[in-house]
């Protein structure tokens, strides 16, 4: 379960072990060069597992939307292959698309149409027979039932985004793409959206979401991928990334400045700053090793009579790791 699911006590019934390793989407060497020469995707390899929430992080122009577009049929790739549900998406595109849902970043629909009609339209377009009970269920789950006969233009921004999700869910997709689902929405609505996404996962929908918000990935995702300049820099379980790339930083304010790191502490990753007044530790990983070492350091310093007047500690976040990756500071991350 994700952090949010644990907190909200939802999604507990989802069987994880067997299905979570079965690939639902397999992208291999995907390339896209736009007219004019811009290379948006440079040989992307990515496998998505059934039942997971996968967060694709990347700065603006990294290639996130192009990657989604290539899978969903909005963009013609110039190279590589995409297999969804075990089948080549180019050859069996109709079958594949029936099982894929897309919620694009922009609010795009006929603003003058009614909510329920737009949702029915989406379901029909995906080849499914009318099912008023299912439409009602979808609208109720997104708190839109009371607004079913309202024109979409009359709704608030958050509700419009929910209509987009309702349309994408109307054909019961097994794989759902959410492109920046919480872009431009307030904190309360963002948390509400997370709740909706987690509820979807609890029903077995595989979700790929792109986001700028690292917090969103931390809260929601089982696995995280980082893309920049059309290349995947890293894909791993969120906890594994933290363990591999997470760091602890501790600052000991010394009562008296020292010229060198004391010999008794030389086995720890330490250096001096502010003319020997500040002893800085940078080390550990995302498993708590850093915190343990800082505690050991404090004990040794107390024992050896190295007096410090203050201590600041900080663990790196997924955001720190993301920024370091994008700025090229973590060369061997992948």
């Amino acid at each position, binding site marked *: 379960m994700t952090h949010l699911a644990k907190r909200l006590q939802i999604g507990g019934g989802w069987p994880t072990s067997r299905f979570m390793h079965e690939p639902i989407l397999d992208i291999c060497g995907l390339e896209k060069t*736009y*007219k004019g020469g811009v290379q948006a995707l440079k040989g992307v390899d990515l496998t998505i597992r059934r039942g997971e929430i996968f967060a694709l992080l990347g700065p603006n122009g990294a290639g996130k939307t192009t990657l989604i*577009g290539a899978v*969903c*049929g*909005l*963009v*013609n790739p110039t190279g590589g292959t995409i297999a969804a549900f075990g089948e080549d998406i180019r050859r069996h*595109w*109709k*079958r594949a*698309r*029936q099982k*894929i849902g*897309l919620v*694009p970043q*922009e609010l*795009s*629909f*006929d*603003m*003058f*149409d009614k909510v329920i*009609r737009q949702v*029915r*339209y*989406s*379901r*029909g*377009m*995906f*080849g*499914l*027979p009318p099912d008023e009970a299912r439409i009602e269920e979808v609208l109720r789950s997104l708190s839109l039932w009371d607004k079913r006969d309202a024109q979409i233009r009359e709704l608030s921004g958050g509700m419009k985004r929910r209509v987009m999700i309702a*349309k994408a869910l109307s054909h019961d997709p097994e794989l759902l793409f959410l492109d920046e689902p919480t872009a431009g929405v307030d904190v309360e609505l963002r948390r509400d959206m997370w709740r909706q996404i987690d509820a979807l996962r609890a029903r077995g929908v595989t979700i790929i979401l792109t986001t700028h918000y690292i917090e969103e990935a931390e809260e929601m995702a089982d696995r995280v991928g980082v893309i920049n300049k059309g290349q995947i820099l890293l894909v791993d379980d969120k906890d594994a990334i933290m363990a591999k790339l997470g760091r602890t930083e501790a600052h000991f304010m010394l009562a008296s400045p020292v010229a060198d790191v004391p010999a008794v502490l030389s086995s720890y990753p330490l250096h001096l700053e502010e003319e020997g007044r500040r002893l800085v530790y940078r080390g550990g990983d995302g498993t708590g090793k850093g915190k343990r070492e800082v505690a050991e350091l404090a004990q040794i310093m107390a024992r050896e009579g190295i007096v410090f007047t203050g201590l600041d500690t900080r663990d790196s976040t997924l955001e720190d790791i993301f920024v370091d990756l994008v700025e090229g500071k973590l060369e061997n991350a992948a």
Partner: protein
Amino acid sequence: MTLNLRGAFAIFRNELMRMFRTAFGSILSPVITTSLYLVVFGAAIGGRMELPGGVGYGAFIVPGLLMLTLLTESTSNASFGIYMPKFTGAIYELLSAPVGVAETLIGFVGAAAVKSLILAAVILGTAALIIDYQIAHPLLAFFYILLVSATFSLLGFIIGLWATGFEKLQIIPLLVLMPLTFLGGTFYSIDLLPEPWRTVALFNPVVYLVNGLRWTFLGQSDFPIALSLGATMAFLLACVAVIGWIFNSGWRLRE
């Protein structure tokens, strides 16, 4: 590959509903315009004119005016129908759904063509109140109206895909189709034109469309009906081929 008939019908129904939401502008307006032409040229002026073969002038211009409306409305409806999702971004749903060129054409072009048929029925009904006219070959007239509606809805669909702004949507219907239709024998037989204008008129493709419909109404026209039918069908196939190429290549759709 299996045809997604439900998908095609969903698009078709959605398009028809969108058109009927704007029925005042899209149906009433062309009916009023055509009725005014019929009153002024057919009933008022035409009442004092005689044409060879004993055909009344009012009855002579009914098929021409109907063709004028069919061409402009079919083209406008279909072009607007596909351009709006492009403009709002809602085209993403069409591109990501299991619908291909066949379902899209059935949906968008079918709806535009059906609306043109409804419009034709309303115009002919209104014309009957103003002008005394007969339809010599009703079944053939129906088929020909259907063929022209579908063909120019296909042309409109291409224009809607090609257009990158609202201005371009209007260029073809207003600056090409309407002048060609006016000069294509809507109000006169091209046999009445002096040379070299008669020869020049033969290069106007709309001449054959107007005369085709006129033949089904009056049983006579400047050209054989087979020529008009053949030319219209050839144009229809050319439009289908262009749309097929657009969907395969992704031009203006998946760029």
